[in-house]
Each structure stands twice: as C-alpha cells, then as structure tokens.
C-alpha cells in the first residue's frame, strides 16, 4: 500500500508523519478490537488523537462492525425453524 495518506484532512491538526496513516489504516480493524501488541496499540491510539481522517475511518469501521453484529439479532423465522427441525427428525428416523 503506497499512497493512503490524506494530508488534506490534517489541516489545522498538528504536524505529524503522514506515512503513519498507511500503517494505521492497515491495522484499524485489529485496533478497534484491542488486538494489537500493547506498543502498537498505543502508537495507533496516539496517531488517532492527532489525525482526524484516520479517526473518522476508525469510527466508521466500528459502526460497520456494530451493524454486522446486529444482523444476527434479527428474530428467527419460526416457520423455517420448524421446517428445519422436522426435516432433521425425518432424516434421523430414516437412519434406523
């Protein structure tokens, strides 16, 4: 990944190494799950405190993950559930 910097969004934010953005964007998913080694987790944290654009991407990834979790909480289709259970019973009975 060679050019994922986004200097235009740093604007009045403090000067920092834009090269860090590429590295940070690669590990954002792991960062939001606190799944990086402590030193790297802290380095990303510190970068996000300075960089609006990367922070925005982190917020968006986090919102995406929450929505994905929500898809599993939709109520099950009880008719289909009953059909699947019935099919399984029939198949198990047929084994004998």
């Amino acid at each position, binding site marked *: *990944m060679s*050019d*994922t*910097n*986004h200097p235009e*969004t740093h604007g009045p934010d403090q000067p920092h190494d834009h090269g860090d953005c590429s590295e940070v*964007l*690669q*590990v*954002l*998913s*792991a960062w939001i799950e606190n*799944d990086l080694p402590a030193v790297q987790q802290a380095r990303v944290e510190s970068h996000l405190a300075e960089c609006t*654009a990367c922070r*925005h*991407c982190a*917020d*968006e*990834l*986090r*919102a*995406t*993950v*929450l*929505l*994905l*979790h*929500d*898809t*599993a909480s*939709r109520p*099950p*289709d*009880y008719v*289909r*559930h*009953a*059909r*699947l*259970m019935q*099919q*399984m*019973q029939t*198949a*198990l*009975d047929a*084994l004998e």
Partner: protein
Amino acid sequence: MSPIPPVPDDGEPAVSPTDLEAARHGDHAAFTRLVESLIDRLYSFSRYMCSDPEDAEDVVQDTLLTAYRKLADYRGEGSLRSWLFRIISTRCQKVRRRRVGEPERHLPFDELSPAALHQVREGPALATVAALPLDELVRTELMGRVEAAIADLPEEYRMVLILRDVEEFSTAEAAEITGLTAAAVKSRLHRARLTVRLALQPYLEEVVR
C-alpha cells in the same frame, strides 16, 4: 414445536453432558436438544454462503446428519457450535464448487486505495446515521443493505466476515473453522469490513439527502 432454547450471553448455548453422551448412543431427542438453538444460525450462515435458499436448507440437513454420525469425534475441546460451523463451512464450499461456471467475485479494490478512503471520509458518516433514532422501516432497509453487502463479498472474504462479525467467533475459532492462519483471518476481515462499509455509501447518501 417447543420455543427456541435461549442462548446464554456469551453466545454459546450450554451443552448438556448428559445429552451429549445420550446423543452419542443414538438418542435422537438428546441430539435434537443439542442442536435446536443452533439451527437458525447454521441456516443463516448457509444462506449467506449458498445463493439458493433450498441449497442452504440442504446444507444444514447434511451438516446435522454428519454431526450426528460423527458425534463421537467431538471430544468437547472446543465448543459444539464451533465444531458444527467447521462441518458446515466445508459443506458450503462443496456446494460452491458444484456450481461450475458461476463467475468468481472480486473485491472492488485491490488495496485500501486512496479513492476508497476518500469516499468514506467525504460521504455521510455511518456512525452518525446508525445512531439516529431511525424509524423501523429505515432500520429494516439499512439492515437489508448490510446483508446485501455481505452477500456480494467474494466467498473467501464473506466466510471470514460472517464468522467473525455476524457469528462473533474469535479470530482463533474462525481460523480453526476455515483452516486459515490467524493472520489471514485478520487481513481478510479488515478488507471485508471496509468493502461492506463502502457498499453502504450510496444508501447513506440517500438517507441523509
């Protein structure tokens, strides 16, 4: 039909050792109790992985029969849920391979490209829209868009995303189920999440207009 048994907060239905032992000795009722709370999640996974709903039901049945026959192989080291998902992921891949001629899907970008990230930065924020008190219709529509975005992912990314973010398996469990390394799971997951987020962009623009 009895109500669907509740799933504990950690997402893992409790497995009764008595039912497990009885099911290993051919007790159908005990086997039914073991899998009833998992059958809808197995179907959901199968439905995402097979484009055809009938194939999805067949895969669930095939998975459950295989599990019943091989229950002696399940030693209880991992969760029963994880073991069943390992079986069903293999079955889904077999169905996919049967569909000769179906076009391969590819991610719409090769890397975290500047253009892709620009879209995320410049458009409406999902974090803002998702936090709005959306009426039921919009919420349902948004969830439908999320599900369509999942379904559009290439299979190898779709499977990892569903296991990690929909079924909420750990990275280690997803690696075990798919046979991938943990690093490969993490890498595919990140790209899949970003792809889903980008796919929602046109809808978000409609909602905030």
